[in-house]
């Protein structure tokens, strides 16, 4: 099958959905002719024009607030926030408008809108351009939260997100944009809420998100050489969360590790641990461990950045510590 990059897969999803549905439009800073800071929307402005690929002033609050207003009145905006770190600028609009409007109105409005934004470190972009803030969004009922790891998942999940009638936070990893993977030419959609077992194994379950799926698969390969069989589960969507697949895997392996790049403290990992605790406690042969970003802002200097982000060896060591 054909191989394309994660960025190309996202662009294809955008293009296909914009062609399929006139109500879909893109809005964000430099998303037009410039093609977005990471080049994801390149070519779309040329194809769809000014109205459907809207370059904005530096006004994240208005980007998201206007998307709420447009979504409530029949459009399907796909907003891009240049870095996930800037979501704070629009956090009121996300929290108090997007996530709650339907509920506050007694179910009488739909808000089909997607906010795409890149997360993660790895570029030495330092503390204000490297965060993974998914835990803010999973804590907000009313939002769906998607975090794809492969080009295939990114495309199928973005299409589902755009078709969803709820606000979806779609978190892309900036170190994945250039990563290639097989993506069929034919159209497909991946429903939100279905985890994917990226590798089957018997001894330990790793639940990993986004870029950490790759690091976990690498760790699994190394551990295989030592006779340890690791299963890697990628939830793909953090809400809705496919608890069943996670729990079934843990029931099989009796051991689990949660790996994410975000800061450990009150990260999504805690939620996964709590769910395993509630639903598979009797099956556990060891405590569930977390391998997460250190509890610091992301530092600039390469050796420091590398240190605070989970690495393959950290995952390997954590797995071994459980056995």
């Amino acid at each position, binding site marked *: 099958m054909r191989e394309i990059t994660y960025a190309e897969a996202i662009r294809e999803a955008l293009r296909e959905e914009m062609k399929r549905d006139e109500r879909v439009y893109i809005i964000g800073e430099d998303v037009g002719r410039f093609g977005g800071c990471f080049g994801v929307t390149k070519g779309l402005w040329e194809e769809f024009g000014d109205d459907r690929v809207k370059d904005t002033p530096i*006004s994240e609050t*208005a980007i998201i607030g206007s*998307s709420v207003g447009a979504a409530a*009145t029949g*459009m399907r905006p796909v907003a891009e926030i240049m870095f996930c770190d800037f979501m704070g600028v629009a956090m009121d609009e996300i929290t108090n408008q997007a996530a709650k409007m339907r509920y506050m109105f007694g179910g009488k409005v739909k808000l089909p809108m997607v906010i795409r934004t890149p997360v993660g470190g790895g570029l030495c972009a330092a503390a204000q351009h490297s965060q993974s803030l998914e835990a803010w969004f999973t804590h907000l009922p009313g939002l769906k939260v998607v975090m794809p790891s492969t080009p295939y998942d990114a495309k199928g999940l973005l299409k589902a997100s755009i078709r969803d009638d709820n606000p979806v936070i779609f978190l892309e990893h900036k170190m994945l944009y250039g990563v290639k993977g097989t993506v069929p030419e034919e159209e497909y959609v991946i429903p939100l809420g279905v985890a994917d077992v990226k590798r089957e194994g018997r001894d330990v379950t790793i639940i990993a998100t986004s870029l950490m799926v790759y690091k976990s698969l690498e760790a699994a390969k190394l551990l295989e050489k030592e006779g340890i069989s690791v299963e890697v589960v990628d939830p793909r969507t953090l809400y809705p969360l496919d608890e069943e697949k996670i729990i079934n895997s843990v029931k099989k392996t009796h051991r689990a590790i949660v790996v994410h790049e975000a800061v450990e403290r009150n990260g999504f990992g805690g939620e996964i641990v709590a769910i395993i605790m509630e639903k598979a406690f009797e099956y556990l042969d060891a405590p569930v461990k977390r391998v997460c970003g250190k509890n610091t802002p992301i530092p600039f200097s390469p050796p420091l950045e590398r240190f605070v982000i989970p690495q393959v060896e950290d995952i390997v060591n954590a797995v071994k510590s459980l056995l």
Partner: protein
Amino acid sequence: MGEEKLWLDMYISMVRIRKFEEKVVELFAQGKIPGFVHSYIGEEAVAVGACSALEPTDYITSTHRGHGHLIAKGGDLKYMMAELYGKKTGYCKGKGGSMHIADVDLGILGANGIVGAGLPIATGAALSSYLQRNGRVALCFFSDGASNRGTFHESLNMASIWKLPVVFLCENNMYGISMPQRKGMAVEDIADRAAAYGIPGVVVDGNDVIAVYEAVKEAVTRARAGGGPTLIEAKTARWRGHFEGDPQIYRTPEEIEDWKKKCPIMRFQEKLIKMGILDEAKIREIESMIAREVEEAVRFAEESPYPEPEEALEDVYA
């Protein structure tokens, strides 16, 4: 619609707001309405003047002080009152309450508990109209306090560069809770801020319903014709506290009494009497009609059931 009929409808709408609000205040004092209540009494000319200049398909965004806006845009008193009571039959099934009443079918994109939140939402509704080429206009109600929020700046800027069909209507009632408008900003007229976005800024007497109507009409016409947004500042006052229970230590009773002398309803009434559109009998007829509507709304609310607790789990997602 002939002007006479329009003026009469506007008068009725103002009385409807006044009577509804008076009842709400009373019911709140009796402990029948939970939560917060922000009374619109005194500002009726703004909501009615503005909404009368709109088509039914146009949009409004409202505020925490929203009852007047909703009624002026055609909100049904029964569903409003039921919502204020937290009843299942309310506009939001009891989930929203005073600060979140909405009826998207009437173009009402919701009261809003976040000051200044309506500005980007209205901008988005206008963007939506523009993209759908459906000719609709969005009108955003907000007050002086909200004009100091970042959302004001970003929204007026965005709307101005894209010439979106939106009217930003600032009800300058001179206070944001206890903060006097003149202390919260170093300019006298909020309308002057329009210049920062290259759009027209208009000051209007917010207690003169016709003046508001005409200013908004002009802005709506410009917006619909692709001329972009307008900032209108309607100078007015709330007669009651910021919320029910506010001791109002920040202003004198005289100040309030002065404003009561400029009652927008009385002023309009006098005008309509002079024009021969209203007379004593008609006034009494209207008042008793509205009284019945309000009573009916209260009865509806009181007789309606509360939602079942488990219904709290519904409507989070579509």
